């Protein structure tokens, strides 16, 4: 450490005079106005401090079987004021939908209505136990049943399970059912076909179940190459996993033909429904030959998943797969709704079993149902139309300045590639980071893998035209700046709380939990 002046009194580096241009002098705290630095809990808390008052412990003979934890746990605490401040400060270093356009393709970052949050917090939903007598929770079963009805009606599919905890878990669920169905017919088969544009969870899921993954190429126009797919079909193909609309933001025109071909060899059509937002209320996957499809409630149906979760991935099923749905599920009988948690002793058990400890993401069901009821059948179709309209509007306004590998119309997201940056020295990554300076979250980058330097832009329907226009202006401005050779890309972002982070160092020498400086030093020695 040579330049001690860059460290504040806590040893935290303050911004240097070089580096970012905004420091005309060094603040002593390392804070800059409302941009406040924040240390780790482990640096500011103490193990004596607590922000929770617990009543006095009654004096009774312990029955811990001699297993008392006597060693320090080394978990520092904070008082409530410090806690609120710590997390408030941290939060302010994040970008979020509430702050601006979040055009992360494939992620459907739409507005999260706050009514949904209020409803999910009603004690009748939030404070009920998964194993209390079902006779005491008819309303919970009612929500599950009504949500199931909406999902089945919107997809035109006869069965649904609510158990899966996210999209990938839904994929697992759908593919488990497919494998169970095949095993029931006596042959699990060994191959799953997955387009090269697929999301990573698709091949990972197939592999999780022991299937070999065979990749299908894309056509020039960004769709599944049907001929290539048919070529790979055989009696050993268990299923195809196709995303529709696909990850290039395009509707698979030949989807019915694909479904028929797969069915013809006795395989199943798993549809990745992550992009359902583009077609909800407009097209029913059940009309397209789908056998199983997961729906990300945290995308299409607006349940918040800040920082990476939680999600919820219900799966709809065709008649063929319905017998294999996992437990638990809600059954409507004459006596009202029933929660089926275990194999029945009377009937043959075809369910593939259980996927998680309880009944799925109830907290997401209440939010999603609230959202669905708010929009209604009419509003949901409007959602799809506006999502698609917004994406096409961006495409129409930016196709001359950026480069779109596939002609429109697109669905709810629009794909650009890096060719407009050719010769500028600016990469897709640089371009995306420069968007941060302009006040936007970058789009999805380098995915899908079928185009070079992909930029996948999904505005969602909850952006206004003014917001899109501002975004379009900014991207056009950046594209021109890149072409003009302006020097604002390589080091971007300049105006974010941090400059580019060294990901290589992070991976090479993984530091995954806090170690106090002296301990770290000792370890290094």
């Amino acid at each position, binding site marked *: 450490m040579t330049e001690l002046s860059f460290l504040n009194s806590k040893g935290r580096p303050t911004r240097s005079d070089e580096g970012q241009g905004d420091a005309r002098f060094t603040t002593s705290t390392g804070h800059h106005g409302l941009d406040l630095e924040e240390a780790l809990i482990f640096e500011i808390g103490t193990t004596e401090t607590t922000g929770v008052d617990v009543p006095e412990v009654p004096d009774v003979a312990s029955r811990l079987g001699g297993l008392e934890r006597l060693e320090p746990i080394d978990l520092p605490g904070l008082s409530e004021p410090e806690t609120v401040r710590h997390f408030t400060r*941290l939060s302010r270093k994040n970008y979020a939908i509430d702050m601006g356009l979040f055009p992360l393709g494939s992620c459907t970052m739409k507005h999260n209505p706050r009514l949904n949050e209020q409803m999910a917090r009603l004690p009748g939903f939030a404070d009920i136990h998964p194993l209390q007598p079902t006779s005491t929770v008819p309303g919970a079963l009612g929500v599950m049943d009504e949500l199931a009805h909406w999902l089945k009606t919107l997809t035109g599919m006869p069965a649904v399970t609510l158990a899966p905890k996210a999209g990938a878990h839904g994929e697992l669920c759908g593919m488990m059912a497919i494998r169970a169905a095949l095993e029931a017919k006596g042959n699990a088969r060994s191959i799953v076909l997955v387009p090269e544009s697929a999301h990573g969870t698709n091949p990972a899921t197939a592999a999780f179940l022991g299937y070999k993954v065979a990749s299908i190429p894309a056509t020039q126009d960004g769709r599944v190459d049907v001929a290539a797919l048919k070529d790979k079909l055989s009696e050993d193909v268990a299923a195809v996993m196709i995303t529709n609309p696909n990850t290039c933001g395009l509707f698979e025109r030949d989807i019915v033909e694909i479904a028929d071909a797969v069915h013809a060899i006795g395989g199943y059509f798993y549809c990745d429904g992550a992009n359902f937002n583009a077609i909800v209320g407009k097209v029913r996957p059940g009309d397209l030959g789908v056998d199983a499809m997961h729906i990300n409630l945290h995308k299409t149906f607006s349940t918040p998943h800040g920082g990476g979760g939680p999600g919820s991935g219900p799966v709809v099923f065709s008649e063929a797969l319905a017998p294999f749905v996992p437990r638990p599920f809600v059954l409507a009988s004459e006596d009202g709704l029933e929660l089926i948690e275990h194999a029945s002793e009377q009937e043959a058990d075809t369910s593939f079993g259980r996927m998680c400890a309880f009944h799925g993401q109830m907290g997401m069901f209440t939010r999603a149902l609230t959202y669905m009821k708010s929009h209604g059948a009419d509003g949901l179709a409007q959602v799809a139309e506006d999502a698609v309209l917004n994406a096409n509007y961006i495409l129409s306004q930016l196709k001359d300045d950026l480069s779109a590998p596939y002609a429109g119309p697109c669905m709810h997201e629009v794909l650009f590639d890096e060719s407009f940056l050719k010769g500028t020295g600016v990469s897709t990554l640089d371009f995306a980071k420069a968007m941060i300076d302009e006040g936007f979250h970058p789009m999805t980058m380098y995915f899908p893998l079928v185009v070079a330097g992909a930029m996948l832009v999904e505005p969602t329907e909850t952006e206004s035209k003014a917001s899109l226009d501002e975004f379009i202006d900014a991207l056009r401005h950046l594209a021109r700046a890149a072409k003009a050779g302006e020097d604002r890309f390589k080091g971007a972002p300049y105006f*974010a709380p941090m400059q580019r982070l060294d990901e290589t160092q992070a991976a090479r020498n993984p530091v995954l939990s806090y170690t106090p400086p002296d301990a770290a030093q000792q370890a290094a020695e």
Partner: protein
Amino acid sequence: MRYLPLTDSDRQSMLSAIGAPLIDDLFSDVPADKLLKEPVDLPHHQAEMLVARDMRRYANQNLGAGDAAFFCGAGAYRHHIPASVDTIIQRGEFLTAYTPYQPEIAQGTLQYLFEFQTQVARLFDMDVANASLYDGSTACLEAILMATRVTKRSKVLLSGGLHPHYRDVVRSMTRFTVETIICNDPVATQDAPGSDTDWLKTTVDEEAACVVVQYPNIFGHIEDFSQLADAVHSTGALLIVVVTEPVALGAIKAPGAMGADVVVGEGQGLSVGLQYGGPYLGLFAARKKFLRQMPGRLCGETVDAEGKRGFVLTLSTREQHIRREKATSNICTNSGLCALAFTAHMALLGEAGLKKLAHYNHSRAVQAAERLAAIDGVTLLNDSFFNEFTLQLAGDAEAIVEHLAQRSILAGVPGARIYPERTQLKDVLIVCVTETVQDEDIDALAQGLKECLA
């Protein structure tokens, strides 16, 4: 529609900018006969007030724990979650952010994930924790799959004390890929101390990838498994410890201190509450040597171009978005917000608060257990326990629970609810007493049981 900013005139002008006369021209790739001509058969949009009314009606049909004398546990625990925790997770910058793939504008999320990993690792006394999985049961499954990868073996031994739902998840989700899953029978009594452990010790062999135990177990028993760990390790297998009630670890020895190789758990009790089962919070921690075989996201420390400390998602070459079919797991979305709630609550508790909370839970449970065990027809089956214990009743536990529920006493989880196939568990009741249980609740339960068993 209140969530849709476009006005009709916006739509018109945008369509003409695009050069599409009609919105359905943008759906021209959809086979014409598949495009719906009118809305599906579901109700139309509704005012916020009316939606709220519908949803409240559902909520009011349920008996909330706060309106009952409440003793349910068995994998989902009711703790008081400070008001500030919910305030924190409702900050728009946390709630409506995405996975922190752009670290320059996601340090808020990244730093709390780093803090979360540190807290979990310290609580379990493990080297590294990941940034969360779906829930305890899927964390358990992932741990087993990791053990099969690490050991390249395909036999798994499950303790009879493992939560039966966890057991079922493991059985279902490994049925096509793991050769042998052996599960010991559940035994509610602690009369024969260590019998389950003894079975595991004697059954584990060179073919076993791992042994899975739960601590405290489904019946509330707590047992030292240091010796088991030795036995397991001597065969080259891994010891996986499942903790469904992490508050316990404020009072009882850490699994890491007893030789666990992987510790997984369920964090809902300290983060997001009961919620009828989800979303919950899967905790996953392991010894450092398994790092590159771990499932799920990891957040690591690094520096930015100016040398300032910062955090990023790291070691993503384990993950599906990079490694696709070779990934360590297919997980993508995890339980980020729940992890935030956990981190904030743990920060509020701190070591002093956690220990006091744990000891308070334990003492209250002991008081309740003694009180209930004194009732005719009730036998306490535990020698040792944390905040949950099992009672043998002189009667059908499920019927009694159902009966008491009508009086707003949620007496606990009857054996038949989770072990419908085991008639010998028909009369047992698993009772959990956390800090939320008041004296009057215990009175109500004692009185209720007395009457039912009279």
